């Protein structure tokens, strides 16, 4: 019994070591980036809440100024594939695949910014 | 030795039945998955006929779920002993049928993963929102009612519980009728006659389902139903079938009287193709007149006749629901009364609908859920109606 306990304990220690490995944390392509509606730390924790509550205000009251998924996509679409989806480096897909949290936003919303030319001109610069 | 062999055979048969049920349910779930993956384009439903075969199955099951409790109500609320003995089975069937019907409805949704939204956001003006409470309430109250019936210490509570269940299911079936009654713009619906019609339909179809299940259980256990009880039950079925004919007649006669409804009635009753066929042949002849013959004609009325009558009533119910639900949508909306209309969106045209395999499998899957719950329930617990005369 004691031997089994010792083996299990050792395994647990080894497994926890993997938490410090950090080899699979996504390195995101933030796209155009720039000034966001809030600071990155806040957004990382609260963007879900923001999306969920802000969308009701936008749809039901028509308030579109500051918060807008379209604007998020405009800034964060990768300049490589012009989207926030597509590869595990893309802004939304990267973290969501890593955290295994399925999102269905882009079943309806476009994952690409308004105009392709906008991003391409940026790349051209 | 005989008893042991019978036990073994029963056990094997039970597992076979469960396997069959699971197969049907699996087919239904596969169909639902297919529909969710590819969208409703894989079904026969479209922008003109938005509710189809799954809804025919689901509404049949939900209406029967309420009506089957009649047997229990006549026992607990009106105190008649033969019915009281049948109350537990009626309660189980009610839960099983409601579960089956709701399974079909929820899986047919455009976004079935959003039932949580339906359970947390309520527009209190919508019948569908009321139904979330009415249906969950029925599950809860029938569960409590079953407990009062089957737990000896709680038996004295069975009358109040039975009364609550009786009132609740009348409200629930009225709600089901109101789903259609509230549709002001559709010529097939939008009438206050529908809630009473649905209630009477529930009485007939619920009893038919009960009689079939009871006959199966008695056959399995090699028991015979006492002729006096059979007579009461069959006469009750006959009475309910006549009542449905009465209300369906009132509905159509009123519609026929209004000039603006005559084109619609002509479509349903005369030249709509499948719809008059199902109405006259399926519902009226096979589903009503033939069962009445089997119930009342001298020389009929035996247990086999009653079983056949019950099955025919159910076939008739599917026919009537198909005509009501699909036929009611196939006839074009009267948006511009007095004008002939054409457009790219089917205005002025009879809509075409053909049931697709995924829809039928989904509907059958719901029946499978009801079947499984019933089969496992009657095997696990004491639902067999035992009459004092035995």
């Amino acid at each position, binding site marked *: 019994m004691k031997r089994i306990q010792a083996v299990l304990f050792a395994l647990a220690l080894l497994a926890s070591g993997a938490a410090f490995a950090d080899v699979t944390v996504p390195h995101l392509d933030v796209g155009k980036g720039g000034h966001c509606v809030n600071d990155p730390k806040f957004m990382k924790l609260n963007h879900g809440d923001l999306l969920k509550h802000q969308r009701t205000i936008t749809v*039901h009251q028509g308030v579109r100024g500051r918060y807008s998924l379209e604007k998020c996509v405009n800034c964060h679409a990768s300049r490589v594939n012009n989207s926030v989806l597509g590869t595990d480096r893309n802004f939304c897909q990267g973290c969501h695949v890593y955290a295994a949290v399925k999102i269905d936003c882009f079943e*309806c919303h*476009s994952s690409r910014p308004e105009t392709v030319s906008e991003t391409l001109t940026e790349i051209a610069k | 030795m005989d008893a042991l062999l019978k036990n073994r055979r029963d056990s094997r048969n039970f597992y076979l039945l469960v396997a069959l049920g699971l197969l049907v349910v699996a087919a239904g779930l596969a169909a639902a998955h297919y529909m*969710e993956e590819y969208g409703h384009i894989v079904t026969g439903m479209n922008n003109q006929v938005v509710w189809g075969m799954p809804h025919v199955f689901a509404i049949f099951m939900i209406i029967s779920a309420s009506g089957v409790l009649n047997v229990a109500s006549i026992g607990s609320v009106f105190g008649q002993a033969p019915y009281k003995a049948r109350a537990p089975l009626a309660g189980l069937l009610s839960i099983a049928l409601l579960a089956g019907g709701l399974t079909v409805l929820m899986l047919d*949704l455009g976004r079935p993963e959003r039932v949580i939204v339906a359970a947390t956001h309520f527009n209190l003006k*919508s019948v569908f929102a009321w139904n979330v409470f009415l249906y969950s309430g029925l599950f809860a109250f029938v569960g409590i009612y079953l407990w009062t019936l089957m737990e000896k210490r709680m038996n004295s509570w069975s009358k109040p519980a039975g009364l609550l269940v009786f009132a609740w299911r009348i409200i629930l079936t009225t709600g089901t009728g109101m789903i259609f009654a509230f549709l002001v*713009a559709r010529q097939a619906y939008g009438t206050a006659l529908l809630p009473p019609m649905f209630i009477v339909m529930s009485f007939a179809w619920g009893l038919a389902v009960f009689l079939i299940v009871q006959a199966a259980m008695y056959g399995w256990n090699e028991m015979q139903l006492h002729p006096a009880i059979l007579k009461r039950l069959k006469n009750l079925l006959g009475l309910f079938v006549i009542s449905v004919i009465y209300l369906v007649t009132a509905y159509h006669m009123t519609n026929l009287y209004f000039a603006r409804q005559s084109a619609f009635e002509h479509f349903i009753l005369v030249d709509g193709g499948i719809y008059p066929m199902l109405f006259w042949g399926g519902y009226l002849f096979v589903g009503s007149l033939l069962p009445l013959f089997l119930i009342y004609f001298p020389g009929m009325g035996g247990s086999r006749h009653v079983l056949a009558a019950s099955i025919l009533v159910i076939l008739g119910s599917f026919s009537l629901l198909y005509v009501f639900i699909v036929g009611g949508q196939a006839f074009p909306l009267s948006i511009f009364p007095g004008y002939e209309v054409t457009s790219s969106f089917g205005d002025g045209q009879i809509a075409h609908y053909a049931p697709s395999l995924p829809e039928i499998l989904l509907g059958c899957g719901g029946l499978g859920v009801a079947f499984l719950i019933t089969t496992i329930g009657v095997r696990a617990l004491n639902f067999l109606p035992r009459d004092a005369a035995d």
Partner: protein
Amino acid sequence: MSEELDRRQFLKGSAMLAGLAIAPGMLLYDLAHGRSLNEPASSAVRWGMLIDTSQCESGCDDCVKACNKENGLPGGTRPTDEQWIRKVELKDMRTGKATSLPMMCQHCEEPPCVDVCPTGASFRRADGIVLVDRHLCIGCRYCMMACPYKARSFVHEPLHDQKPDVPRGKGTVESCTLCVQRIDRGENNTACAEACSKAGHKAILFGNLNDPNSEISKRIRTVASTQIRADLGLNPGLHYEGL
């Protein structure tokens, strides 16, 4: 001396008062003529249309094409395809008179689709536009059963390449939004009305029914117009001339 000062003060005071009196009116004027993106829609506005069927040409479907382009609709006409606007050809059964008109969501004041929606996804915005909140839509299609105008469509297939300002998806119900994405941006005209103007027919007039000085209000006061299925008492925001 003191009288002069008093007069000056009086003049200043009255000028201020006058300014205060006009200010709210100017604010309303602002609200009616394009609210900023950060402001919510307000019931001071009621968006509506006046459609002159006598100007509507049979066979022309510029409005439909414009709507499809603006909202990213593929434009198919299979029974499962979404149509937010359609041209309807009418013939009076008694007189034989032929008419043509565009048909879309009528944006009722008492919408049956809003009453029946179980989750509240179908709703009427403060400024009169009836919309579907597709975050809440479960795809039950009850609103489609309830609509007297068959205005709504169900999305039967997975969608791709939606326009960024018109999100739409499989399994939800949709209908004419009076180009809400344009309205909220301040371009107070719908794609269909604009296209009809460009085609020279000018059959569709879009505007604010609550503003007595808008073009639509002025015209609706002077010409005979009706609402489709007015007998249902829904008070739609769309009015039709020549029916």
